[in-house]
Structure formats: structure tokens, C-alpha cells
């Protein structure tokens, strides 16, 4: 079942084209990667999905509903959660409070704080601490947990491995895999190409605001020639 579909998205900032004819679609419980160099339009695509940077043209449907023109809070209430690259937690609030205010009911399953603590055991002793005192890895755990308590059908991950230690990156990626097993779809934008190829079902490669290639992740994983051609990797 198609959970998400974006069709022919266009966006300009002045004379600069940031999204041009961007189309992508994926099913329930799949992991999709968007890759490309800086300025390719990856983050703008995620922001367009959330209504934070509305596209000039195009159509976006989530869970059978057209979300173009809806305000961000209504899109979020449909079951879309965001894990931004700069975490954006409330620094003066405790971890527990950050999770509490992110709870919402959608038609998808809501994770409890206990389940989040099971996914990230380190979270248990962080609950009473203010977020301004946490490390980057700890903040990422909070940010992902906050997305999960919001009952998502789709989680948008923007650079989830940015600035994290390899062990934490591994934990984050295994969480995305775990979500997939639970039927939650993920759209992952990351510079860490190998990591995305390891967890994604399908990848879209963007350059200068356009999707220039789309393929099953396994195809790029197994074909060194295609990897070198599209991603510049050996």
C-alpha cells in the first residue's frame, strides 16, 4: 500500500531552483533514502513534506490524504514525525517533559516512554535531566524518541548520523531498521552513503534540485560500477 507520494514538486528561492520536478513514492513500513551533495535539495524536500517550505507546484499525499496547503501542525497530526538535523528539543525542559509534550494520537501506534527506554536503554537515567546538559548522541536519542511518542506512520530523518560517534550511529540505524519491522516507514536524508545503503529499501539520488536516479538500495550496494557512477564511491 502506497503510504507516501510526492509528485512533480517545484520550488525556487528567487532565481535559484531548489526543487525541480521531484517525485517519489514509497509503501508502508519501508525505508527510503535520499542522497546527494550539499545543496541538492534533500532537506528542502523534507521541509516541503512537512509544509515548512511549501512547494510552488506539485502534490504530496500521505496516507491517502493530500497535504499540500495544510499547516505543519495538521500534517504532523496525520502521523508524520520529524527528526531534524539539529535535534530541536526544548533545552530548558527535562527529557521526560520533552517526550510528554510530543505525545499525540494518530491512527498509527504510539510508542510509550518505556518502549523508547527499551530501544535506547541509556534514556532511562536521562529522563529527569534538562536537555541543555546532554551530549549530541543523547540529544539524538531524545529526538528520535520524541518522534516515536508522536505515533508516526512515517518518520523523516534529516542527517541522523551527523556529528555522532560510530556506536551511536549504529544504534540510530538499528532503530530505523526496528521501525521498519514494526511497520513504520522512514525517509532518511544522510551524507553517510554506505550507512543509508545498508538500511534502505530504495534510494533516490538528488543533484541540483532534481532526482537524477532512483534504484533499490541493494542494486547500488551490489553494483560497484553503479555506485561509482552515481555516488562517486568505490
Amino acid at each position: 500500500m502506497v503510504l507516501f507520494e510526492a509528485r512533480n514538486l517545484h520550488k525556487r528561492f528567487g532565481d535559484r531552483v531548489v526543487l525541480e520536478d521531484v517525485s517519489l513514492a514509497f509503501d508502508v513500513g519501508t525505508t527510503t533514502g535520499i542522497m546527494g551533495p550539499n545543496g541538492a535539495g534533500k532537506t528542502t524536500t523534507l521541509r516541503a513534506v512537512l509544509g515548512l517550505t511549501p512547494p510552488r507546484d506539485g502534490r504530496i499525499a500521505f496516507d491517502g490524504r493530500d497535504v499540500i496547503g495544510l499547516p505543519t501542525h495538521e500534517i504532523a497530526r496525520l502521523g508524520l514525525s520529524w527528526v531534524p538535523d539539529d535535534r530541536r528539543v526544548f533545552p530548558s525542559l527535562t527529557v521526560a517533559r520533552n517526550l510528554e509534550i510530543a505525545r499525540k494520537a494518530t491512527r498509527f501506534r504510539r510508542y510509550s516512554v518505556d518502549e523508547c527506554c527499551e530501544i535506547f536503554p541509556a534514556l532511562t537515567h536521562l529522563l529527569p535531566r534538562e536537555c541543555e546538559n546532554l551530549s549530541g548522541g543523547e540529544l539524538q536519542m531524545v529526538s528520535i524518541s520524541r518522534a516515536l511518542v508522536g505515533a508516526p506512520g512515517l518518520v523523516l530523518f534529516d542527517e541522523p548520523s551527523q556529528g555522532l560517534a560510530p556506536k551511536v550511529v549504529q544504534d540510530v540505524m538499528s532503530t530505523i531498521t526496528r521501525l521498519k519491522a514494526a511497520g513504520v516507514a522512514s525517509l532518511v536524508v544522510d551524507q553517510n552513503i554506505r550507512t543509508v545503503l545498508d538500511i534502505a529499501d530504495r534510494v533516490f539520488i538528488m543533484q541540483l534540485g532534481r532526482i537524477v536516479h532512483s534504484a533499490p538500495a541493494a542494486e547500488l550496494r551490489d553494483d560497484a560500477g553503479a555506485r561509482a557512477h552515481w555516488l562517486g564511491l568505490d
Partner: protein
Amino acid sequence: MRARFLGYRVWWFKFSVFVLSTAIAGLAGALFAMAQQSAYPNVMSLHQSGFVVMMVLIGGGLASFWGPLLGAAFFILARDLLGAYTETWLLWYGLVFIAIVLWKPEGLAGIGRSLVDRVRS
């Protein structure tokens, strides 16, 4: 923005808080007029409004819910105790205000919080 992507209609909350706070301020004004059995334009003067802003900032209204209450108590104490000794009590109160804004913008509530943290650690 972070509240919006968590599903909150931010402008509605801001509007509601504005309406609620102005309603409470209106109620306070009405009670004040009843207590004084009079109402004159000078209670809405810049002078009076300045006192309220100073109470909030000295108390730590930027950092704490109860800060303005502390600030109001501090103002009354300064006016009644300091004012009993000198007519220039406002000068000293103003200097305290400047010192707090410069060195402890979280106000009296922030000073209290720092002391509690220091005792705990």
C-alpha cells in the same frame, strides 16, 4: 517551529495566552479600583507600567513562572523598608535592577535556583 512539527497550533496557543493574561490583568485592575474605591488615569501611566516591567525582570519572569511574584514582593519590601530610611529608595532599587539585568538576567528566581543547585551539588 519545533512546536508546530510536534502538532501544536502555535498561533492559537499564543492568542489564548494573550487573551487569558489580559483578562487576568483586567480582573486585577478591576479589583484594584474596587479596593481603592477610585480609578484615575495615573494608574495607567508610563511610570506605573515601568514598575511592573521592573518587578517582572527583577523577579526573573523570563526564566520562572513564579518570578514575577518574587519581583512584586521584592518591590513592596524595597518600597516599604528601604523607603522608611531614605527618600531616594528608587535610586537604590534602580541600581539593583541594573545589576540584575547585567549579571543575573534570570532574576531572583535564577539566583534562588543557582543556590539550590549549589547546595545539591
